[in-house]
């Protein structure tokens, strides 16, 4: 065990409403770790707290530690400089910025950066280099470019928020392979998802529900629990599964 990210008793309350209710999580260096859970479980909120986005720079209580550094209160770019990044579920579009420029910006501290290789690894050819990262890319293409930008940056920890959303079933295998490639290149992956099929590629998985961790274990065990427990729960307690 060699923890790269430790989440200790993290609580988050927004406008008096508890969103995270004491989350404990350990992600080991070099692993792919999936966080599974229904909508509203607090998965994306936890991802936002790790990266410091959406004005969530620190939890109400508890601590988030990357290697031996406390992330609480740090700016987004300070976390990125330590080696943490995040890929959004629905990535931003940029007017007037080409794919090549975007990848070069992402990989500006990577001395071995090869933008063409990064594109090839996500299934796009070099013709995409001159395309703009704007509305002219389809949802799937934009998602691939986002994963290419993570490969370009080569961070120590990548938090991938729903990397499988908006991707058709045929491309799911591609996405799984891209995530494995990231790991092969030295990036630990923390992957947020609500689909147990994609979680199966992980080394370990954690199930979250209602702002709490329910179980951590093998993807199979956790996936089984998710299928049996959460699906029934969604039917019984629709108030627990609101949008995140």
């Amino acid at each position, binding site marked *: 065990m060699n923890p790269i990210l430790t989440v200790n008793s993290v609580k988050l309350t927004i406008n008096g409403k508890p969103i995270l209710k004491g989350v404990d999580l350990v992600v080991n260096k070099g692993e792919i770790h999936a966080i599974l859970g229904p909508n509203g479980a607090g998965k994306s909120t936890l991802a936002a707290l790790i*990266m410091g*986005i*959406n004005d969530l720079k620190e939890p109400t209580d508890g601590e988030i530690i990357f290697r031996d550094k406390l992330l609480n209160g740090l*700016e*987004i*770019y300070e*976390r*990125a*400089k330590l080696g943490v*990044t*995040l890929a*959004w579920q629905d*990535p*931003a*579009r*940029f*007017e*007037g*910025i080409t794919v090549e420029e975007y990848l070069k*910006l*992402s990989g*500006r*501290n990577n001395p071995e950066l090869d933008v063409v290789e990064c594109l090839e690894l996500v299934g796009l050819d070099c013709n995409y280099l001159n395309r703009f990262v704007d509305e002219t890319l389809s949802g799937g293409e934009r998602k691939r470019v986002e994963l290419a*930008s993570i490969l370009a*940056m080569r961070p120590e920890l990548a938090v991938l928020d729903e990397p499988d959303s908006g991707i058709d079933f045929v491309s799911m295998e591609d996405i799984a392979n891209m995530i494995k490639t990231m790991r092969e290149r030295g990036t630990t992956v923390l992957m947020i998802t609500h689909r147990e099929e994609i979680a199966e590629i992980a080394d370990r998985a954690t199930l979250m529900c209602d702002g709490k961790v329910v179980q951590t274990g093998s993807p199979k065990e956790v996936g089984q629990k998710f299928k049996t427990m959460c699906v029934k729960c969604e039917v019984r307690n629709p108030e627990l599964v609101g949008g995140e």
Partner: protein
Amino acid sequence: MEVKKNLLDTIGKKFVQVGLPRELFEKNRFNLLVDRNKIVVRYPAPGVRSEVIETPTGVKTKVYVEPGTKLEEPVILCFGAAETTEVQTTEGEIIVGEGADVKFQVYGAMAEGIKLKHENKLKVRVEKNARFEFLDLHYNGEETFVELETETDAYVGENAYFRSIFKQTRGRAGRVRIVLKANVDKKGVAVFETKMIGKKDDEIYVEDVIHLNGEESRGISKSRIIAVDETKATFVGETYGNAPKCRGHIDCSEVIRGKDVVVKAVPVVVVNDETAKVTHEAAIGSIDKKQLETLMARGLTEDEAVDVIVQGMLR
């Protein structure tokens, strides 16, 4: 060819300092370079006839692109000021003959620290089946103060294409008033694009007026103004759909950054024919937070991320 070499070197240093590409001077790529009211370089382009006269405060130019002229390289002009002068006036007329296809790349360069008023009046006539792109690139220093008044009046002939792009993406804008007008004939196309950044107490006023007078004519008016600090900026886009099946669109997207910024966008859409269609979209707001956070998550500071986003919008 008329080149005042020493003068060119002296001016070159000052204009490169505010952002003009160095290679323009190293390779002397100019077809016409004017400093205040002095012609420094004049070099004809094939198929392009011109008359340039020095006046007490600037120059008067007449340019005629002969019918059928097609140039792969742009015609490069520069009207600048290397030293402070009270006023610089440029008056011009450009006629692009039938079936010609040319690009003019025009640099407006105002050296660091100077103050001046620049007045420009331009008449453009793009004849039948011709294609004309007019890229107007302005470079001012951070400590330069320019009061710019420029008015372009264009006629776009049958099946002709005219695109005018005004860009000032570095340095200070100063006090700027830009008026662009076009009358567009049958199946003609007029495209106006303005991309500017205002800083400190800059004042920007942009007015695009497109009259779609010919059947199936088209017009696009697009503005991207980034207003920072205490900048006051106004964009007025007027498009008149006067003919059957003409199509027009106004697209203004302005970004504000600073609590004392005031930005106004006024789209005016007038349609006088039941088969005409003119649309508009306008958005004024701060830098998109998700764009900012995405770049910061790749290690850029907030200021670096803003610069990347803004330069992308002004591209």
